[in-house]
């Protein structure tokens, strides 16, 4: 299985504060790759750097064999790297339909946007019901669906999911996870950063544990789930 995204020695942060100090990993085509770690370990910073929202201070980034370290965010979206950001960041004063529509702003996705939208509505019937409602008035779970749907509208080859179940009720989190599994089964390559270690590792083909901006541990998802070090790190047991 070839790597769709390869990151080497990624250094990133905000201004003078460096948060990710040289992180490397690879996301294989068609697989789910998990990044797990505590709050503040640098998962979100890394995800933002991958999406090009934060500039890379150092390191190499290859996507489908192309060097994209210098590409800006919108160029990466066009290439197929799409981030569903932490906190969802949906557009609060736009309707559900508009939120989806702007997800397809890149030229590659724009042509097919009607069909993609139908697919998204099929995936989340709840969004179809609330097509005209403003994004800001949706519940947390619906907002997460919308964020995910908006990401899918861009026709991603690689979907970056940052904390997709943050603050969600368990039932909603479950729904999101099952959706992710369905997307993966459909052949989409996914990188997911999550605190919910259990469920995340459950669906991941491969996982990387990030601690203090550095790689602490890597392995197959299921294997890490039983790793005592992971258990110790997250429950103190």
């Amino acid at each position, binding site marked *: 299985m070839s790597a769709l995204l390869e990151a080497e020695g990624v250094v990133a942060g905000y*201004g003078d504060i460096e948060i990710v100090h040289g992180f490397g990993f690879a996301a294989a085509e068609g697989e789910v790759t998990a990044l797990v770690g505590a709050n503040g370990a640098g998962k979100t910073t890394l995800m933002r750097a991958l*999406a*090009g*929202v934060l500039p890379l201070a150092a390191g190499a980034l290859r996507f489908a064999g192309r060097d994209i370290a210098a590409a*800006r*965010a*919108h160029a990466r*979206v*066009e290439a197929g790297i*799409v*981030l569903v*950001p932490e*906190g969802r*960041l*949906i*557009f*609060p*004063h*736009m309707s559900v339909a*508009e939120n989806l*529509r*702007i*997800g397809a*702003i*890149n030229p590659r*996705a*724009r042509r097919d946007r009607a069909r993609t939208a139908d697919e998204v509505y099929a995936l989340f019937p709840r969004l179809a019901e609330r097509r005209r409602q403003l994004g*800001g008035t949706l519940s947390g779970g619906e907002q997460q669906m919308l964020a995910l749907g*908006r*990401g899918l509208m*861009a026709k991603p080859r690689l979907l970056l999911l940052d904390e997709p179940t943050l603050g969600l009720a368990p039932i909603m989190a479950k729904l999101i996870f099952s959706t992710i599994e369905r997307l993966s089964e459909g052949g989409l390559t996914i990188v997911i950063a999550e605190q919910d270690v259990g469920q995340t590792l459950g669906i991941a083909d491969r996982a990387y544990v990030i601690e203090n901006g550095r790689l602490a541990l890597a392995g197959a998802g299921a294997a890490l789930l039983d790793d005592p070090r992971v258990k110790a790190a997250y429950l103190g047991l």
Partner: protein
Amino acid sequence: MDALLSGQLLVAALVTGALYALTALGLNLVYGTMRLLNVAHGDLVMIGAYVAFWAFTLLALSPLLGLAAAAALAALFGLALYHGLFRRLLAGGKAAQRLEANSLLLFFGVSVIVQNLMALQFTATPRGYQYLDTVYRWGNAAITGNRVAAFAVAVILCGGVLAFLRFHVTGLAIKALIQRRDAAAVVGVNVERVQQLALCLGFASAAVAGALVSMTEQISPFMGFPFTIAAFVVIILGGLGNVTGGIAAGLLLGVLETYGVALTSSAYRSILVYGVFVLILLLRPQGLLGGRRIVR
């Protein structure tokens, strides 16, 4: 009291309001997308007025065509400013508060320069011309042709921009930038390009407002400041960065001013306008028409 019910006041309120709305539109776009406080906004109105004046005086070109030239010139000016001044500032990404304060000072500098260069070039002598001066009447209301034209153009442009923001994907991108800067890039909006567009559009709409105003008012290099003020009052009223709210607030201010003055005395006009402005800022800084902030 009969005067209150006359169509004349309504006509005045609508014309004034539509011009307020158009003037404020550009300021809102520039603030909304980039958090730049453009205190030189009125000077773009002035530039637009001069372009229309010279086009009419030298080339006998109708100001309704001259406004296209004014828009193009202002858009170019916006592009030049973007590359010369603001790109660095916007890319810096330092605290937003600093950006706003700095942009205010930069635009103040721009304002001083533009006014005085214009005064050097054209002298401070007031200028003006007549165009579509015929009065049309129906019922107890009357209106000159140029005011009808100004109203129509302002309404069409405001409506056009609203439609563009609503229905065109690039318009949607501008709205995205206004609502959530951080998310716009994430969904694939070319932030740099959209910012340039917003600045050009903002500058151009101010210049068009200037071209319209030149048909009914005298013009001079120092005429811009009151327009800057009016535009700020309107966008505060409508909520900073809320384009639809701004347009509604422009019309509202026109009505408020016209009827407020009719009910009290014209002597209180400025107190009324600034009083409303200050009260809104104190009591409802998100704007009269702005929704409550979404709490995360």
